[in-house]
């Protein structure tokens, strides 16, 4: 079931186009990653989904409600972590969590405090005395406390230490297990790869590619040195492989299919120094944005 739908979503600022004709969807219970370099339009896309910006063209819906015209209904169904959460510095962590728990009908102070505990956060401190990472954790606790069907996170693990990053990724997995849809942006490809089922890649305000992680996980690159003439693959295997070799005998093979038939063929070739590695999201990202 489609929970989040964007159709031809476009945003212009005068002559500058921040996002153009962006169409994608996310199903209920799906974790959808959002990738792109700085200025690719990630934050603009998230702000359009939240109804903070009026689309120049196109539309987006969440659970059938228009993101710009029905913001209250939309906001009842989601919680959002901004890319750079800035919190009122006069409050303590506890006061902030209690305040946001009162604002969202699907949240409660108990849930917020439980979340803070999971993130190992000292909520008795005033926010002005918290480090950037602690403030990020506090904002995360406020965001992840409401029991809502959609969680939208803009770079949730930025400023966090490795342990906290692990906790956040675990919380995202738990959200998915609970049937929630998660849409999050990140610059850390390994994180996106770890938890997402699909990833959308933006390039200069346009949706460059939608990637199914299951497909990416099947993709491998094989590097080897030829010690003699090799016999080209036959049948279905031939169509599945992309083979390059240089005059020095170095061969690179890319495959998006299962490894078993390929391994059988490889065993019959005159090869040495064979190395098989998963292609990963990095290679897909590099296709659009050069070296990542």
């Amino acid at each position, binding site marked *: 079931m489609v929970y989040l739908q964007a159709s031809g979503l476009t945003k212009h600022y005068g002559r500058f186009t921040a996002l153009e004709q962006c169409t994608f969807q996310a199903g209920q219970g799906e974790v959808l990653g959002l990738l792109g370099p700085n200025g690719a339009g990630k934050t603009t896309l998230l702000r359009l989904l939240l109804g903070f910006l009026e689309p120049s063209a196109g539309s987006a819906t969440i659970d059938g409600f228009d993101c710009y015209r029905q913001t209250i209904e939309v906001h009842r169904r*989601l919680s959002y972590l*901004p890319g750079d*959460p800035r919190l009122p510095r006069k409050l303590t962590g506890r006061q902030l969590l209690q305040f*946001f728990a*009162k*604002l969202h*009908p699907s949240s409660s102070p108990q849930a917020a405090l439980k979340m803070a505990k999971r993130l190992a956060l000292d909520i008795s401190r005033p926010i002005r005395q918290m480090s950037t990472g602690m403030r990020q954790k506090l*904002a995360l606790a406020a965001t992840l406390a409401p029991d809502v069907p959609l969680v939208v996170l803009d770079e949730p693990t930025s400023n966090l230490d490795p342990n906290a990053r692990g906790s956040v990724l675990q919380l995202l997995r738990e959200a998915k297990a609970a049937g929630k849809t998660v849409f999050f942006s990140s610059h850390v490809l390994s994180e996106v790869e770890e938890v997402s089922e699909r990833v959308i890649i933006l390039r200069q305000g346009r949706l460059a590619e939608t990637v199914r992680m299951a497909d990416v996980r099947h993709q491998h690159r094989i590097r080897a040195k030829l010690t003699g003439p090799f016999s080209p693959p036959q049948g279905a295997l031939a169509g599945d492989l992309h083979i390059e070799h240089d005059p020095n005998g170095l061969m690179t093979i890319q495959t998006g299919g299962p490894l078993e038939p390929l391994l059988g063929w490889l065993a019959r070739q005159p090869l040495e120094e064979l190395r098989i590695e998963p292609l990963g999201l990095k290679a897909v990202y590099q296709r659009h944005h050069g070296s990542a």
Partner: protein
Amino acid sequence: MSRALWCQTLRDSLFLLLGCCSLLFGFIWLRLWIVSQIDFAEAANLFTKMLPKFFQRLLPVPIDMIATIEGRVVVGYEELPVGLLMALWTVTRGTECLAGRLGDGTLEMMLAQPVRRLALVTSHSGVTLLGVAAVALAAWLGTAIGIFTVGFDEETSITTYLPATFNLFSVGVFMAGSATLASAIAPSRAQAVAIFVGFYVLEITFKILGLMSSDLAWLKKWTFLSAYEPTQLTIGLKSSPELYWPLFWQTNGLLIGLGLGALAAAATIFCRRDVPAPL
């Protein structure tokens, strides 16, 4: 939900509000004590002889009226600290309402809650208006306590100064509304303050020029400060109430109407505008 917003907004502004109220209360009380130490009949004669004619035109009422007990008390409402403290409260709060909170990013997570943008403006502006009332009340309390404790040589009732207090409240509503409107238009708080200060300087220039030159008297119609006349209203309502009550309602109605209109315009702009990512 909206109660949480109101309580939080009130808590955020309590320190500033208490500061403004106590300073104003203290200033008015202290000023009354100083005034009680001066022989105004003698001082008024001196001022009439010494002050140049063009300067006397800037006074809210003729010098002999300021020398009356009501004049001596109420002219304090026209002193610089009173205007400054009211401006401090209204401009700080008004410019913070939208440009301030959008600029520092603290509105970002609140906007993602199932709360109408209008509720965010009304809770903030509601507390600002309550504060305006509190600041005006502090001025009246300072006057009342001053009258009771200082001991003037003439009798005067503390209710005489309620119209001046209401006039101070009205000008506060106007300033709060215009500062909030500036914050809805401006992309940053600094620009909102600049817009408001520019507007205020222009208005005060209009008033001074309008008072000093009869050729430029028409300028007085283009400044909201012409509607802030606590001394004239207090003395006029005592001497000719049938003449001054219509003026009282007219000036205060204009200030409050324009102030609330500016608040409504600010809310409308904010509800429709794009909310950019904080810088």
